[in-house]
């Protein structure tokens, strides 16, 4: 049952209209793009940093945990309130507060949609580089929390390389500025620490980002190979030749066949894999690099090469990659996206291991991922209505994560640890390593105040509150809350 006193105080802080507490309203906020579920006790949509601070203070007084939520596109359960409590949704705080084109800086509220930043500054010949696949929907606040990546991070880095400063609300309900617009602010780099902290240390209310000049020329290549091994060999060869493309993506045969049915990208049905390679810079540079990349791909057995110079042609080459996840939805009722990283040279061996493991578990897999970074995204297709299937898929995910770790890699490259991978943390970090991380949490005083149950190993289940609420709703019958 919702704490009505808490709800009333929240309503006074942000206005009645912006506090949700009816069961049917809350259901919308119990999920993100992962398998986990967790139902909040109330949802608040504040309009300003001051309101966020006030909501945090109220929630803390009532001992309720606070979980921040952007667009809910996260892939590690970052926005799922494991302990119920209050969910702060940032969708009303979606103003671009300032664009300083001369100094290539933008100041954003956390609810601004990623792609809207680049749209807003395009007139100045600028753009915001991190481009997660969900960039049409995902918010900057969520990007900061998860240190989001994307295809073009190969050359330009992830969110953390583009955030100069933050305004955050601490667990005490104080508004604090971290970092700033000017270079090297004296003191510890708390901005760098807050980025990627998955909403467990503070709640972001303002983000200062660095913008880049749009390149003069961009060339996109699609190289199609018979075998996955040939494609991963080409990835290593390109990097080894001293070429760092702006993007270097792999689409495997299973993905290509799914995409072909959905978006008709012109992929041959018997191909093993394709590489999507993009270079940008001065025209002279991109022309030369594109030629080198073509030569490497040909030498490694590419059976077909397509090249796009104009925006329309490049868009067409990207269509298959961008439509991949949607297309996979046609193959199975559910899919589970994994996120692991390996050293680039280990890519061929680990990919082979991924296919073997999926065969062994009897699930089809489609790999579409950031090969240039060694950042794998196996998509395991399954039907969650089949009893036991979800658990088997999670087990398979664990096997694949083990492969990444054994190859010297990491359990997450850009999606975050969240709930699902918290118990894998001890595979790559010692107790002492984790202890130093937990001391950061102590320094921020966040304890279980913000986004509890995430990042750190724990045996506590997520969404216990949620399942209670669901049971209550089910018992009351379908019409009870309509």
């Amino acid at each position, binding site marked *: 049952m919702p704490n009505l006193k808490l709800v009333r105080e929240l309503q006074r802080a942000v206005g009645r209209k912006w506090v949700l507490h009816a069961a049917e309203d809350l259901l919308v906020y119990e999920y993100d793009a992962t398998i986990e579920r967790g139902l909040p006790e109330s949802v608040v949509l504040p309009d300003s940093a001051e309101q966020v601070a006030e909501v945090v203070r109220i929630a803390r007084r009532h001992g309720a945990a606070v979980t921040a939520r952007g667009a809910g596109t996260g892939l590690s359960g970052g926005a799922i309130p494991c302990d119920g409590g209050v969910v702060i949704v940032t969708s009303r705080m979606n103003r671009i507060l300032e664009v300083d084109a001369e100094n290539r800086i933008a100041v954003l509220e956390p609810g601004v949609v990623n792609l809207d930043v680049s749209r807003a500054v395009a007139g100045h010949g600028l753009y915001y580089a991190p481009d997660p696949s969900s960039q049409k929907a995902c918010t900057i606040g969520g990007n900061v929390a998860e240190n989001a990546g994307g295809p073009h991070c190969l050359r330009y880095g992830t969110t953390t*390389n583009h955030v100069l400063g933050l305004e955050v609300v601490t667990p005490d309900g104080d508004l604090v500025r*971290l970092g700033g617009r000017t270079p090297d602010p*004296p003191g510890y780099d708390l901005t760098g620490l807050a980025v*990627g902290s998955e909403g467990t240390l503070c709640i972001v209310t303002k983000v200062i980002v660095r913008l880049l*000049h749009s390149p003069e020329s961009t060339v996109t290549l699609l190289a199609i190979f018979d075998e996955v091994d040939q494609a991963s060999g080409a990835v290593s060869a390109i990097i080894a030749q001293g070429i*760092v493309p702006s993007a270097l993506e792999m689409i495997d045969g299973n993905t290509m066949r799914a995409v072909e049915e959905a978006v008709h990208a012109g992929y041959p049905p018997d191909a093993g894999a394709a590489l999507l390679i993009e270079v940008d810079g001065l025209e*002279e540079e991109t022309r030369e690099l594109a030629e080198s990349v073509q030569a490497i791909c040909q030498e490694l057995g590419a059976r077909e090469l397509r090249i796009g110079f104009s925006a329309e042609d490049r868009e067409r080459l990207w269509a298959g990659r961008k439509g991949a996840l949607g297309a996979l939805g046609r193959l199975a009722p559910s899919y589970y996206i994994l996120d692991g990283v390996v050293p680039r040279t280990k890519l061929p061996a680990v990919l082979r291991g991924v296919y073997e493991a999926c065969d062994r578990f009897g699930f089809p897999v489609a790999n579409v991922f*950031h090969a240039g970074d060694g950042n794998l995204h196996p998509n395991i297709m399954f039907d969650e209505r089949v009893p036991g299937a979800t658990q088997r898929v999670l087990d398979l995910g664990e096997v694949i994560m083990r492969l990444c770790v054994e190859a010297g890699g990491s359990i997450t490259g850009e999606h975050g640890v969240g709930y699902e991978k918290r118990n894998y943390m001890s595979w790559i970090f010692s107790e*002492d390593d984790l202890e130093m991380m937990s001391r950061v949490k*102590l320094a921020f005083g966040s304890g279980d105040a913000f986004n509890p149950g995430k990042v750190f190993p724990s045996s506590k289940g997520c969404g216990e509150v949620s399942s209670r609420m669901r049971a209550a709703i089910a018992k009351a019958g379908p019409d009870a809350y309509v």
Partner: protein
Amino acid sequence: MVKQTSVLSRLESIVGREGVLGDVAALAVDGLTPQAAVAPASYEQVAEVMRYAHAEGLAVIPRGGGAHMHIGNVPARYDIALSLSRLNGVVEHEPADLTATVQAGMTLGELQRHLAGAGQILPLDPPGGERATIGGILAANAWGPWRHAFGSARDMTIGLRVVTAEGRITRAGGRVVKNVAGYDLCKLYVGSLGTLGVIVEATFKLAPLPREQRTVASAFPTAGDACALAAAVSGRGLSVRSLTLARDGGAWVLALKLAGTPAAVERSRRELGALAQVADAGAPAGVLPDGASLLCKASVLPSQLPALIDALEALEAPRLLAYPTVGVCYAAWPSPVDAESIAGAVRELTSAAGGTLVLERCPLDLKRRADVFGDASASFGLMRRVKQQFDPHGVLSPGRFVGRL
């Protein structure tokens, strides 16, 4: 107070006779001489030294080549100099991964020579980098002209091995170029000036060596004109790796390093020629003498730089070096008559421009009175709590950091 002889003998039992450094006076920091100096030969020895220091409350200042020891406040205490100089090897360099793991005591010069063999570089070029060590560069967050193209150490450090104040060997980050597992403690250690842990090993993203490099220079009557060219070059996306601005006699000279494919360098050179009168030049000479007794590092928005430089000129700063696209200007006075009033004036100018000032070098009497990092920022409370958590007994470079942490 632990007796000096017992400190020495305990340390010797940890690092062996060969690990004890005799000349402690040479390792003085801001006039303070340590009781003992050691150069451990393994991470475990570093950890053992820290366990001992932590238990006894002895203050440790880690050091590499000593290139950045002038940065920071006067230490509150200084018992043990901890030199990383014997931990100086490449741990792993897989060229096809474009990453390398190295020990903290390796000099940047040595590392660059090693990487050049594979056609790669660590894209960091702080002045004095030849003798500066990796650990020191990371602790001081030192950088150079290449920052324009590559960012600073925080952008290329993907993993660290750190011995904590309590003497535990820990890891932050990893060995892969993309990694969001857990809090990014690398960010916290980089630039923490040896106050949160002892960096013993680092893993970096590397960059390929450019196929062609060329340095050109252009002279302007005012800093503003030079900064305008810098902005135009950067806006056109020309293949520029670095831009540095320095006064040379009556003129302002903007030196640009062009790097990339030969055709791109050629085109960039041509377009530059259309924007300004440029001439081929050698590498820009270091214009900031090591011996300056007052060295100010002012950080502002790039758009504020011309006005700041003009104001610094009005203060008759004898040496000025600026990175116009980064927004940083160094001003040096080799032998100022009144360092305190000059430093105060520069601080006022910088904060009026919305920036921050660090006195990287200043006379000791001034350093004892004023925090070289200026007034504490809004987030100082959090910083103090981080320091307390990471170094509960205050044994790591106590007093040296912002707000005398």
